């Protein structure tokens, strides 16, 4: 090698050794860190093994496969009050949140609409490991807790049970939840305005509907569906007390009842059949079969490709039909009285639920008059003309006009619920009885809540002859409705009725803005699951 090369080589060697030195240094550092970590872990483990005197007061017990019958009373969260102070109780609830703070862990335990604060603190009953375990329980896990109820001096604003808190002695996880939830319950309950203002997340409707099981756990959803159950119960009870009989009508039918366009077809062995758009025909046949006053609660299927805030393809219909003596207003009075009883029942027995919903969706309380306000169609037209709306005498009300009319009626009469009587004949179905005094109008009526239609009803044509004429006038194929017309040939009493949508009534009573909020698993043109 030449001198230069030698020099180059030594330089290389020097460079290498410099690099080598650096490398060695790095490795040494790494090794030192690793050793530190390992020793720390070892220390922790040692620490966790040492002195866990509370080992049997927490943990994950084996899955409940009905191994034993425990004679244990579980207290409901909603019953926790200062009266139970210093009692030792068991309860089963979900972990809503858990927050560790040094030697303490704060949990919020939730049961349906109610929640309560609970505390695990290092002391003679709980060890450090137990506190750590409590802090690591995943949200939404179901836990069994034995705790003593303690009164608090300062009200706990963030919980429904504000006067007490639980001091946990034993805590077991009965069903663990996965760590990552598809949506956070706190976000799902947050009012929209608050979300925007404070920059916190809210959950949009599609996410909520896709993960309906979790969304239904929120306090708001629990309240809405309890109220809906209340509506059904009040409907049944009120009508039964009035002497109505509940009937069940078939949903698979051979001919479309309201009109061919909006009906679902199903394959029926070798032919096809339809899903009922309403129990109309069968209600009437029951009247002709002498049941006098009937009602039915069941699903209604409308294949309308409407993607609006108030249309579903499947909803629950509450339908009424009754024979009357001389005037169809007897029917209107009966229906409005039923509605008023429902409103009163909700107002008197479901205040908790209404307030819970209002926390997320504020709205004005629902107002109604007794006796119910009844306006004639011509009066309504006059009110709309005065407000500057151009409308023909025999025209049907469009949705914006209905809403405007609702506002005008609210302003003038201070009611959210009213009946509009004597609609023009031209816009009603063929089985509507025409007005005896004015051929342009009919004995039909609609009922509105907060300016949106909830019921469409009328006196029905009970004479086979007139019915045939009206059907021909509407250019309906008589063959398809032969059995319907036949049912009136053998003595039929004058009768009328109407049908309301359960989801719509709940939505409008609570002042909500989308019908999917009041349908547990909604169906619309774009949604078939869950």
């Amino acid at each position, binding site marked *: 090698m030449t001198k230069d090369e030698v020099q180059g080589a030594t330089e290389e060697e020097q460079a290498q050794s410099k690099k080598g030195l650096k490398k060695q240094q790095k490795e040494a550092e790494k090794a030192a860190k690793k050793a530190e970590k390992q020793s720390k872990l070892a220390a922790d483990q040692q620490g966790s093994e040492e002195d866990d005197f509370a080992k049997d007061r927490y943990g994950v017990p084996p899955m409940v496969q009905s191994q034993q019958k425990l004679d244990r009373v579980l207290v409901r969260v909603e019953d926790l009050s200062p009266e139970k102070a210093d009692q030792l109780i068991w309860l089963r609830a979900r972990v809503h949140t858990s927050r560790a703070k040094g030697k303490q862990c704060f949990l919020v335990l939730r049961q349906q609409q109610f929640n309560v604060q609970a505390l695990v603190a290092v002391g003679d009953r709980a060890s450090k490991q137990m506190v750590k375990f409590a802090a690591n329980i995943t949200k939404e896990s179901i836990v069994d807790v034995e705790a003593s109820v303690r009164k608090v001096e300062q009200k706990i604003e963030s919980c429904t049970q504000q006067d007490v808190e639980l001091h946990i002695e034993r805590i077991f996880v009965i069903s663990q939840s996965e760590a990552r939830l598809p949506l956070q319950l706190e976000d799902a309950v947050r009012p929209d305005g608050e979300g925007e203002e404070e920059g916190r997340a809210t959950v949009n409707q599609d996410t909520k509907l896709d993960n309906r099981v979790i969304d239904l756990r929120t306090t708001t959803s629990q309240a809405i569906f309890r109220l809906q159950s209340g509506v059904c119960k009040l409907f049944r009870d009120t009508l039964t007390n009035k002497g109505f009989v509940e009937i069940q009508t078939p949903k698979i039918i051979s001919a479309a009842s309201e009109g061919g366009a909006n009906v679902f077809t199903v394959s029926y062995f070798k032919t096809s059949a339809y899903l009922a758009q309403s129990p109309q025909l069968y209600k009437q046949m029951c009247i002709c079969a002498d049941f006098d006053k009937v009602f039915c609660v069941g699903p209604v299927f409308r294949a309308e490709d409407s993607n609006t805030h108030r249309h579903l393809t499947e909803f629950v219909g509450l339908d009424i039909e009754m024979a009357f003596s001389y005037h169809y207003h007897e029917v209107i009075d009966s229906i409005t009285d039923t509605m008023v009883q429902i409103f009163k029942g909700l107002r008197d027995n479901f205040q908790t639920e209404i307030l819970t919903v209002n926390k997320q969706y*504020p709205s*004005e309380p629902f107002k109604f008059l007794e006796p119910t306000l009844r306006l004639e169609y011509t009066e309504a037209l006059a009110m709309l003309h*005065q407000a*500057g709306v151009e409308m023909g005498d025999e025209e049907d009300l469009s949705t914006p006009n209905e*809403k*405007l009319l609702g506002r*005008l009626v609210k*302003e003038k009469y201070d009611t959210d619920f009213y009946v509009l009587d004597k609609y023009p004949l031209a816009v009603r179905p063929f089985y509507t009885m025409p007005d005896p005094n004015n051929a342009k109008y009919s004995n039909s009526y609609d009922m509105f809540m907060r300016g949106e239609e909830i019921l469409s009803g009328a006196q029905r044509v009970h004479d086979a002859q007139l019915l045939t004429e009206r059907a021909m006038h509407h250019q309906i194929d008589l063959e398809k409705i032969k059995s319907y017309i036949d049912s009136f040939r053998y003595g039929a009493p004058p009768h009328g009725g109407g049908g309301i949508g359960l989801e719509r009534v709940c939505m409008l009573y609570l*002042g909500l*803005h989308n019908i999917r909020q009041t349908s547990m698993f909604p169906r619309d043109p774009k949604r078939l699951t869950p």
Partner: protein
Amino acid sequence: MALRELSSLEKYLGLKKPNKYSTQGDKKVPVLQNNNGPPLVGLGTIASHLVKVAKRPNLLGDSAESRAVVQQWLEYRVTKLDGCTKEDTKAILKDLNLYLQDKVYMAGNQFTLADTFMYFGIHPIIVDLSVQEKEQYVNVARWFDHIQRCPGVRHHLPPLAVLRNRIYTSKHH
């Protein structure tokens, strides 16, 4: 459009002989050919002239300040209001609403040409407003209703309904 307004104005002023107007340009600016002088061009100019002919100078404002304001609104009418787009409408209504908060008439304390021509100009916008929007721009609606009821002003335009009471609360549905 402008020609009809001018003929309505003539009727209001009680001028016996209707003048013949022609228009010039794409914007159809009205022109009044005078026998003894140069032609008068422009809505505001012609209107002021007619008012002087009819010996009703108070319609142009009774003080120097209100006269200036009247001219300002006539300018506004011709430049901003005629041929404004949909987006501008909202801004215009908002400005007017703020301006009319504490005023009965556009200029001063009496009816002037500014009211007439602003009324003519804003009529097509108000026609398209819904009840809720009219409630939103409550001052404009109040002034509009007042002017359209003044005798002799309306003429060729249909009356528009303005409700007396508020039917939309703050939490609108």
